């Protein structure tokens, strides 16, 4: 693995597709979306598709563990993290790693030029890329 491997654009990686909900979505339904999609976050977008916030697994524990069952009925706009950090497809992989590191983020949305989400980069994607550059085979190949 060379330093240049980490200077490639983040948009080159096979990242996740964003799952978006409306700001009036109830927390209970957003949690169900996380469960059913087996995803770590949903994005909250407005009528124009612009990102208003992000709601993650950690938020489920943090918000609902303190609010209790009643928290499930709140609109997600009240518990999301507003104006999350975003990246662009031409930002470098190492820049994404750096942002995840200093911000403590596990997920960062990628937006297009107009601020609409196009992908989700997660620490999992980063570790998968590092593993690939280290020559680790995919689990499927390892078992075949």
């Amino acid at each position, binding site marked *: 693995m060379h330093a240049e491997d980490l200077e490639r654009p983040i948009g080159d990686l096979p990242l996740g597709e964003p799952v978006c909900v409306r700001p009036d979505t109830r927390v209970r339904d957003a949690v169900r979306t996380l469960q059913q999609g087996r995803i770590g976050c949903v994005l909250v977008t407005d009528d124009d598709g612009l990102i208003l916030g992000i709601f993650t697994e950690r938020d489920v524990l943090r918000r609902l563990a303190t609010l209790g069952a009643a928290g499930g009925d709140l609109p997600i706009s009240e518990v999301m993290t507003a104006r999350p950090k975003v990246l662009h497809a*031409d930002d470098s992989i190492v820049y994404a790693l750096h942002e*995840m590191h200093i911000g403590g983020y596990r997920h960062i949305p990628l937006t297009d030029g107009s601020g609409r989400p196009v992908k989700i980069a997660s620490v999992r994607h980063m570790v998968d890329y590092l593993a690939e550059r280290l*020559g680790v085979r995919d*689990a499927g190949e390892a078992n075949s």
Partner: protein
Amino acid sequence: MDRHAVQEDLEQFEEELDREDTYLPQVALEISVEELHLRNHETIGPDASIQGAIDAMLAANIGCLPVVENDRLVGIITERNILHKVAPDFERMDTRTVREVMVLEPVSVRHDASVASAIRLMHEGRFRHLPIVDAHDHVEGTLSVRNIVEYVVDHFPAEVLNLPPTPVERNPIQSREGA
């Protein structure tokens, strides 16, 4: 694959890594998981409540706790476990126990394994966390994917990290954890 076979497989993997390569493999080979000096040493017992586990995770700012009983690793409990097995039934979090939702006999990593081996285990097993154990299977802490990210960033040339990647106006950085 049993634990002994996993250990042998990892040792072979480390031997086969390209030592002539210029950047990460050499560094990754030289550093063991133990040498990362991780701060995550929290564990929990199987009879603790889910609420207790959540409180401990949030206090330690970590998404996973090794479950230890009689000084032995018996499971792990993660944010995702709780999300899938408990939420949104939050009424009963203080009566349900860790034992009910924990993952049994989790894959762990030895404290003297290399970071490269840990990356491989996480990649192949789709794990975000690995309990770290000593030679006697005593739990020493938890390795997370975020620790790996920190490790890579810490070893990347500072001049690259300090360069703004694109002259695009960005949202202000939020002061938060765990997005």
